[in-house]
Protein backbone atom coordinates (compact mmCIF):
# COMPACT_ATOMS: atom_id res chain seq x y z
CA UNK A 1 0.00 0.00 0.00
CA UNK A 2 1.35 3.41 -0.93
CA UNK A 3 1.73 6.03 1.74
CA UNK A 4 -1.06 8.62 1.90
CA UNK A 5 1.44 11.19 3.16
CA UNK A 6 3.72 11.09 0.12
CA UNK A 7 2.78 12.45 -3.29
CA UNK A 8 4.44 11.03 -6.39
CA UNK A 9 5.03 13.69 -9.06
CA UNK A 10 3.41 13.10 -12.43
CA UNK A 11 5.92 15.16 -14.42
CA UNK A 12 8.43 17.93 -13.95
CA UNK A 13 7.90 21.48 -15.18
CA UNK A 14 11.49 22.69 -15.20
CA UNK A 15 12.72 22.10 -11.66
CA UNK A 16 9.19 22.05 -10.20
CA UNK A 17 7.56 18.63 -9.74
CA UNK A 18 3.84 18.65 -10.62
CA UNK A 19 1.58 16.14 -8.87
CA UNK A 20 -1.90 14.97 -9.72
CA UNK A 21 -3.52 16.77 -6.79
CA UNK A 22 -1.97 20.06 -7.94
CA UNK A 23 -3.48 19.62 -11.40
CA UNK A 24 -6.89 18.80 -9.90
CA UNK A 25 -6.64 21.77 -7.60
CA UNK A 26 -5.70 24.14 -10.45
CA UNK A 27 -8.53 22.76 -12.59
CA UNK A 28 -11.05 23.34 -9.78
CA UNK A 29 -9.72 26.87 -9.26
CA UNK A 30 -9.91 27.63 -12.98
CA UNK A 31 -13.46 26.28 -13.36
CA UNK A 32 -14.72 28.07 -10.24
CA UNK A 33 -12.98 31.30 -11.17
CA UNK A 34 -14.27 31.27 -14.75
CA UNK A 35 -17.82 30.43 -13.70
CA UNK A 36 -17.77 33.16 -11.04
CA UNK A 37 -16.55 35.62 -13.65
CA UNK A 38 -19.19 34.74 -16.21
CA UNK A 39 -22.03 34.47 -13.66
CA UNK A 40 -21.41 38.01 -12.42
CA UNK A 41 -21.38 39.66 -15.87
CA UNK A 42 -24.44 41.75 -16.76
CA UNK A 43 -25.91 41.90 -13.25
CA UNK A 44 -29.41 43.38 -13.36
CA UNK A 45 -31.49 45.07 -10.70
CA UNK A 46 -34.29 42.66 -11.54
CA UNK A 47 -32.35 39.39 -11.31
CA UNK A 48 -32.59 36.51 -13.71
CA UNK A 49 -32.88 32.95 -12.39
CA UNK A 50 -29.11 32.36 -12.47
CA UNK A 51 -28.39 35.66 -10.79
CA UNK A 52 -30.95 34.89 -8.07
CA UNK A 53 -29.27 31.53 -7.39
CA UNK A 54 -25.83 33.17 -7.14
CA UNK A 55 -27.24 35.88 -4.86
CA UNK A 56 -28.73 33.17 -2.65
CA UNK A 57 -25.31 31.54 -2.17
CA UNK A 58 -23.64 34.87 -1.40
CA UNK A 59 -26.36 35.94 1.03
CA UNK A 60 -26.20 32.61 2.90
CA UNK A 61 -22.44 33.07 3.43
CA UNK A 62 -23.07 36.71 4.35
CA UNK A 63 -25.63 35.71 7.00
CA UNK A 64 -23.33 33.11 8.55
CA UNK A 65 -20.43 35.57 8.75
CA UNK A 66 -22.69 38.26 10.19
CA UNK A 67 -24.03 35.84 12.83
CA UNK A 68 -20.53 34.88 13.95
CA UNK A 69 -18.78 38.25 13.78
CA UNK A 70 -21.68 40.59 14.68
CA UNK A 71 -20.45 43.17 12.18
CA UNK A 72 -20.65 44.07 8.50
CA UNK A 73 -19.67 40.87 6.63
CA UNK A 74 -18.53 42.60 3.40
CA UNK A 75 -14.72 42.46 4.03
CA UNK A 76 -14.82 38.82 5.20
CA UNK A 77 -17.25 37.17 2.77
CA UNK A 78 -14.72 36.86 -0.11
CA UNK A 79 -12.30 34.82 2.02
CA UNK A 80 -14.88 32.66 3.78
CA UNK A 81 -17.04 32.12 0.70
CA UNK A 82 -14.08 31.20 -1.48
CA UNK A 83 -12.80 28.70 1.08
CA UNK A 84 -16.29 27.22 1.50
CA UNK A 85 -17.11 26.80 -2.19
CA UNK A 86 -13.62 25.56 -3.08
CA UNK A 87 -13.70 22.99 -0.26
CA UNK A 88 -17.16 21.72 -1.20
CA UNK A 89 -16.01 21.07 -4.76
CA UNK A 90 -12.59 19.72 -3.74
CA UNK A 91 -14.03 17.34 -1.14
CA UNK A 92 -16.80 16.06 -3.41
CA UNK A 93 -14.71 15.58 -6.55
CA UNK A 94 -13.84 12.10 -5.27
CA UNK A 95 -17.12 10.84 -6.79
CA UNK A 96 -15.92 11.69 -10.31
CA UNK A 97 -14.09 8.63 -11.65
CA UNK A 98 -10.30 8.90 -11.97
CA UNK A 99 -10.16 12.08 -9.89
CA UNK A 100 -8.96 12.32 -6.29
CA UNK A 101 -9.65 15.01 -3.74
CA UNK A 102 -6.73 17.43 -3.57
CA UNK A 103 -7.67 17.97 0.10
CA UNK A 104 -6.68 14.35 0.85
CA UNK A 105 -3.07 15.50 0.41
CA UNK A 106 -0.94 17.27 2.98
CA UNK A 107 0.19 20.06 0.65
CA UNK A 108 -3.27 21.38 -0.25
CA UNK A 109 -4.57 21.48 3.32
CA UNK A 110 -1.32 23.07 4.49
CA UNK A 111 -1.71 25.80 1.87
CA UNK A 112 -5.32 26.44 2.93
CA UNK A 113 -4.39 26.56 6.62
CA UNK A 114 -1.56 29.01 5.83
CA UNK A 115 -4.03 31.21 3.93
CA UNK A 116 -6.19 31.33 7.07
CA UNK A 117 -3.13 31.94 9.27
CA UNK A 118 -1.99 34.98 7.26
CA UNK A 119 -5.52 36.34 6.79
CA UNK A 120 -5.89 36.42 10.56
CA UNK A 121 -2.87 38.75 10.73
CA UNK A 122 -4.06 40.75 7.72
CA UNK A 123 -7.53 41.43 9.12
CA UNK A 124 -6.27 41.88 12.68
CA UNK A 125 -3.66 44.47 11.68
CA UNK A 126 -6.07 46.22 9.34
CA UNK A 127 -8.72 46.53 12.05
CA UNK A 128 -6.52 47.45 15.04
CA UNK A 129 -3.23 48.72 13.59
CA UNK A 130 0.07 46.91 14.08
CA UNK A 131 0.56 48.01 17.69
CA UNK A 132 -3.05 47.38 18.63
CA UNK A 133 -2.94 43.91 17.16
CA UNK A 134 0.40 42.95 18.71
CA UNK A 135 -0.83 44.19 22.07
CA UNK A 136 -3.32 41.33 22.30
CA UNK A 137 -0.40 38.91 22.62
CA UNK A 138 0.57 40.38 26.01
CA UNK A 139 -2.95 40.65 27.41
CA UNK A 140 -3.89 40.11 30.18
CA UNK A 141 -0.25 39.54 31.18
CA UNK A 142 3.06 39.33 29.26
CA UNK A 143 3.55 35.88 30.81
CA UNK A 144 0.76 34.63 28.56
CA UNK A 145 2.59 35.55 25.33
CA UNK A 146 4.23 32.13 24.71
CA UNK A 147 0.87 30.43 25.15
CA UNK A 148 -0.76 32.85 22.68
CA UNK A 149 1.94 32.15 20.09
CA UNK A 150 1.73 28.40 20.72
CA UNK A 151 -2.05 28.44 20.34
CA UNK A 152 -1.81 30.28 16.98
CA UNK A 153 0.61 27.63 15.70
CA UNK A 154 -1.32 24.61 17.00
CA UNK A 155 -4.69 25.82 15.78
CA UNK A 156 -3.28 26.27 12.28
CA UNK A 157 -1.80 22.77 12.50
CA UNK A 158 -5.13 21.42 13.75
CA UNK A 159 -6.98 23.14 10.90
CA UNK A 160 -4.65 21.45 8.43
CA UNK A 161 -4.80 18.03 10.06
CA UNK A 162 -8.57 18.02 10.62
CA UNK A 163 -9.35 18.49 6.95
CA UNK A 164 -6.59 16.11 5.83
CA UNK A 165 -7.49 13.44 8.38
CA UNK A 166 -11.19 13.44 7.57
CA UNK A 167 -10.93 13.39 3.79
CA UNK A 168 -7.93 11.06 3.57
CA UNK A 169 -9.18 8.59 6.18
CA UNK A 170 -12.48 8.44 4.35
CA UNK A 171 -10.58 7.46 1.21
CA UNK A 172 -8.72 4.75 3.15
CA UNK A 173 -11.97 3.37 4.63
CA UNK A 174 -13.52 3.36 1.18
CA UNK A 175 -10.54 1.44 -0.23
CA UNK A 176 -10.85 -1.16 2.54
CA UNK A 177 -14.61 -1.55 1.99
CA UNK A 178 -14.17 -1.88 -1.78
CA UNK A 179 -11.49 -4.55 -1.32
CA UNK A 180 -13.75 -6.48 1.09
CA UNK A 181 -17.21 -6.21 -0.49
CA UNK A 182 -17.73 -5.74 -4.22
CA UNK A 183 -20.13 -3.28 -5.74
CA UNK A 184 -23.22 -2.36 -3.74
CA UNK A 185 -21.86 -2.00 -0.22
CA UNK A 186 -19.42 0.89 -0.94
CA UNK A 187 -22.13 3.13 -2.43
CA UNK A 188 -23.71 4.18 0.92
CA UNK A 189 -20.18 4.72 2.24
CA UNK A 190 -19.49 7.04 -0.70
CA UNK A 191 -22.73 8.91 -0.04
CA UNK A 192 -21.65 9.34 3.57
CA UNK A 193 -18.35 10.65 2.24
CA UNK A 194 -20.19 13.44 0.40
CA UNK A 195 -21.85 14.41 3.67
CA UNK A 196 -18.50 14.36 5.50
CA UNK A 197 -17.02 16.58 2.81
CA UNK A 198 -19.83 19.14 3.16
CA UNK A 199 -19.55 19.19 6.96
CA UNK A 200 -15.77 19.58 6.82
CA UNK A 201 -16.06 22.45 4.33
CA UNK A 202 -18.57 24.16 6.65
CA UNK A 203 -16.38 23.61 9.72
CA UNK A 204 -13.27 24.91 7.95
CA UNK A 205 -15.07 28.06 6.80
CA UNK A 206 -16.69 28.67 10.22
CA UNK A 207 -13.38 28.15 12.04
CA UNK A 208 -11.66 30.59 9.67
CA UNK A 209 -14.41 33.11 10.46
CA UNK A 210 -14.05 32.56 14.19
CA UNK A 211 -10.26 32.98 14.07
CA UNK A 212 -10.53 36.15 11.98
CA UNK A 213 -13.25 37.43 14.29
CA UNK A 214 -11.08 36.85 17.36
CA UNK A 215 -8.26 38.83 15.73
CA UNK A 216 -10.52 41.69 14.66
CA UNK A 217 -12.03 42.40 18.07
CA UNK A 218 -9.16 42.57 20.54
CA UNK A 219 -10.89 44.46 23.34
CA UNK A 220 -12.81 42.17 25.70
CA UNK A 221 -16.57 42.18 25.05
CA UNK A 222 -18.68 44.17 27.47
CA UNK A 223 -21.44 42.45 29.42
CA UNK A 224 -24.05 43.56 26.88
CA UNK A 225 -22.47 41.87 23.88
CA UNK A 226 -21.03 38.68 25.39
CA UNK A 227 -20.99 36.06 22.69
CA UNK A 228 -23.71 33.50 23.20
Amino acid at each position, binding site marked *: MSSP*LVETPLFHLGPVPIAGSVLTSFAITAVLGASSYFLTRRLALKPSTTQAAVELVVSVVDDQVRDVLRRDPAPYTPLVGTLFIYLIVANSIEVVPMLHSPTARLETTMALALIVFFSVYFYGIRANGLRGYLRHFIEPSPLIAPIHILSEATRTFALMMRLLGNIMSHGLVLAIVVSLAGLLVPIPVMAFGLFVGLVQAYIFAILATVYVGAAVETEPPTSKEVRT
Partner: protein
Amino acid sequence: MTVQAWSILGAVVAVCFGAIGPAFAEGRAIASAMEAIARQPEAGGTISRTLFVGLAMIEAIAIYCLVIALVLLFANPFAH
Protein backbone atom coordinates in the same frame (compact mmCIF):
# COMPACT_ATOMS: atom_id res chain seq x y z
CA MET B 1 9.98 -8.00 17.66
CA THR B 2 11.23 -5.74 14.89
CA VAL B 3 10.76 -2.00 14.72
CA GLN B 4 8.05 -2.49 12.08
CA ALA B 5 6.01 -4.81 14.30
CA TRP B 6 6.28 -2.43 17.25
CA SER B 7 5.23 0.45 14.98
CA ILE B 8 2.11 -1.38 13.83
CA LEU B 9 1.28 -2.18 17.45
CA GLY B 10 1.85 1.44 18.39
CA ALA B 11 -0.42 2.66 15.60
CA VAL B 12 -3.18 0.27 16.72
CA VAL B 13 -2.90 1.38 20.34
CA ALA B 14 -2.84 5.07 19.36
CA VAL B 15 -6.02 4.90 17.31
CA CYS B 16 -7.79 2.52 19.74
CA PHE B 17 -7.29 4.48 22.93
CA GLY B 18 -7.17 7.84 21.23
CA ALA B 19 -10.69 7.36 19.90
CA ILE B 20 -12.26 6.58 23.29
CA GLY B 21 -11.95 10.00 24.89
CA PRO B 22 -13.17 12.07 21.93
CA ALA B 23 -16.07 9.62 21.42
CA PHE B 24 -17.35 10.16 24.95
CA ALA B 25 -16.75 13.90 24.69
CA GLU B 26 -18.63 14.23 21.41
CA GLY B 27 -21.49 12.18 22.83
CA ARG B 28 -21.79 14.49 25.81
CA ALA B 29 -21.59 17.61 23.64
CA ILE B 30 -24.29 16.41 21.23
CA ALA B 31 -26.57 15.28 24.07
CA SER B 32 -26.31 18.68 25.74
CA ALA B 33 -26.93 20.46 22.45
CA MET B 34 -30.03 18.31 21.81
CA GLU B 35 -31.39 19.18 25.25
CA ALA B 36 -30.70 22.86 24.68
CA ILE B 37 -32.41 22.85 21.27
CA ALA B 38 -35.42 20.97 22.69
CA ARG B 39 -35.71 23.56 25.44
CA GLN B 40 -35.15 26.58 23.18
CA PRO B 41 -35.83 25.72 19.53
CA GLU B 42 -35.52 29.38 18.47
CA ALA B 43 -31.83 29.36 19.46
CA GLY B 44 -31.19 26.27 17.31
CA GLY B 45 -29.04 28.05 14.73
CA THR B 46 -26.60 29.50 17.24
CA ILE B 47 -26.45 26.28 19.26
CA SER B 48 -25.75 24.06 16.28
CA ARG B 49 -23.07 26.40 14.94
CA THR B 50 -21.33 26.45 18.32
CA LEU B 51 -21.78 22.68 18.48
CA PHE B 52 -20.04 22.22 15.13
CA VAL B 53 -17.11 24.39 16.18
CA GLY B 54 -16.83 22.52 19.50
CA LEU B 55 -17.07 19.14 17.79
CA ALA B 56 -14.27 20.17 15.45
CA MET B 57 -12.11 21.05 18.45
CA ILE B 58 -12.84 17.71 20.15
CA GLU B 59 -12.30 15.84 16.93
CA ALA B 60 -8.84 17.38 16.58
CA ILE B 61 -7.66 15.15 19.43
CA ALA B 62 -8.73 12.00 17.61
CA ILE B 63 -7.12 13.37 14.44
CA TYR B 64 -3.81 13.84 16.28
CA CYS B 65 -3.92 10.15 17.22
CA LEU B 66 -4.58 9.28 13.57
CA VAL B 67 -1.61 11.42 12.56
CA ILE B 68 0.63 9.61 15.04
CA ALA B 69 -0.58 6.27 13.68
CA LEU B 70 0.09 7.36 10.09
CA VAL B 71 3.54 8.67 10.97
CA LEU B 72 4.34 5.38 12.68
CA LEU B 73 3.15 3.40 9.65
CA PHE B 74 4.38 5.47 6.72
CA ALA B 75 6.98 7.99 7.92
CA ASN B 76 8.64 6.14 10.76
CA PRO B 77 11.96 7.81 11.60
CA PHE B 78 13.38 4.63 13.20
CA ALA B 79 12.52 2.05 10.53
CA HIS B 80 14.71 1.91 7.45
